[in-house]
């Protein structure tokens, strides 16, 4: 039984079950800095590729459409793109919004597709894997600092990491700001990962009640509650894609316009 994976057959190893990283194709295993790294193709990797493929096909086909009046799927996508541009990019980048909005669009749609594909029964949520969200957060990390360096120049950007304060406060703030540099992408990664897994865990626990109580009343209540949580997960999938993009945009804006 899938629930009983792990060392003790009577215990449910939820983390193992969530990761579901049985490789489909074996590619390579190696050790880097004492850390075992596997390049095998798992369900998460396949769904991540599918999400990337869908984003590329959908967005490029829409961007090639001629004319001001949208047709077909462009009606669905264009308001979302405009919303991200007007609500996220323009307030943070002002007149330079056009330069940075493609990154935000790509981030939003990739995370959204990963989240939504994970809600199809039988598939897996790629963003529910800490490695995937850590990779996304690493992209955000580089985007934040590249934005800062492009807008201010390397010297000015490095000098602006610590805001202007009395000199005796400077070393303390340097430590705080350097921790903050790492904490931002770390928080982004863990937030997305935990949010995507939270709903799945609740659904699994609700389904577990059926096996625990073994009667029809519990089954009915469990299925109804799991359906409600599933609906909530659709909302969370949209919200977390938005929050990730929003926070990335805010941090990029903060790097582009440091305090004087």
């Amino acid at each position: 039984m899938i629930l009983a994976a792990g060392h003790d057959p009577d215990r449910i190893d939820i983390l193992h079950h969530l990761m579901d990283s049985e490789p489909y194709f074996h590619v390579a295993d190696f050790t880097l800095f004492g850390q075992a790294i596997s390049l095998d193709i798992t369900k998460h990797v396949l769904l991540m590729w599918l999400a990337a493929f869908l984003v590329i096909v959908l967005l490029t086909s829409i961007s090639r459409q001629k004319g001001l009046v949208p047709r077909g799927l462009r009606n669905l996508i264009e308001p979302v793109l405009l919303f991200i541009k007007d609500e996220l990019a323009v307030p943070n980048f002002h007149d330079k919004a056009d330069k940075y909005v493609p990154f935000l669009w790509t981030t939003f749609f990739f995370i959204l597709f990963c989240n939504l594909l994970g809600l199809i029964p039988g598939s897996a949520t790629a963003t529910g894997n800490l490695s995937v969200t850590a990779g996304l957060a690493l992209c955000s990390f580089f985007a934040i600092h590249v934005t800062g360096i492009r807008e201010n120049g390397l010297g000015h950007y490095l000098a602006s990491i610590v805001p202007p304060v009395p000199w005796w406060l400077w070393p303390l703030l340097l430590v705080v700001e350097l921790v903050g540099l790492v904490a931002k992408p770390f928080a982004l990664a863990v937030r997305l990962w935990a949010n995507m897994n939270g709903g799945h865990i609740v659904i699994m626990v609700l389904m577990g009640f059926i096996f625990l109580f073994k009667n029809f009343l519990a089954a009915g209540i469990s299925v109804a509650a799991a359906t409600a949580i599933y609906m909530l997960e659709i909302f969370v999938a949209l919200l977390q894609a938005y929050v990730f993009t929003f926070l990335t945009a805010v941090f990029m804006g903060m790097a582009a316009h440091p305090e004087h």
Partner: protein
Amino acid sequence: MEGLAMLGAGIGAGIATLGAGLGIGKIASGAVESIARQPEAAGDIRGSMILTAALIEGVALFACAICFMIQAKF
């Protein structure tokens, strides 16, 4: 010992939820109040509300993830 660890994980998750709920509730109450006072600033207020709520939620999720790891370890 194992039971105590489980108890700790459960209580920890509960306390984290309590804190996050109180914090996000305070943000929401403040935001609704200020939107009612100044409806034209609704967009800005909503933006900062989501930002701070997401930050609080992040901290609460760290706590939950740690509880989860305790649960998985024992």
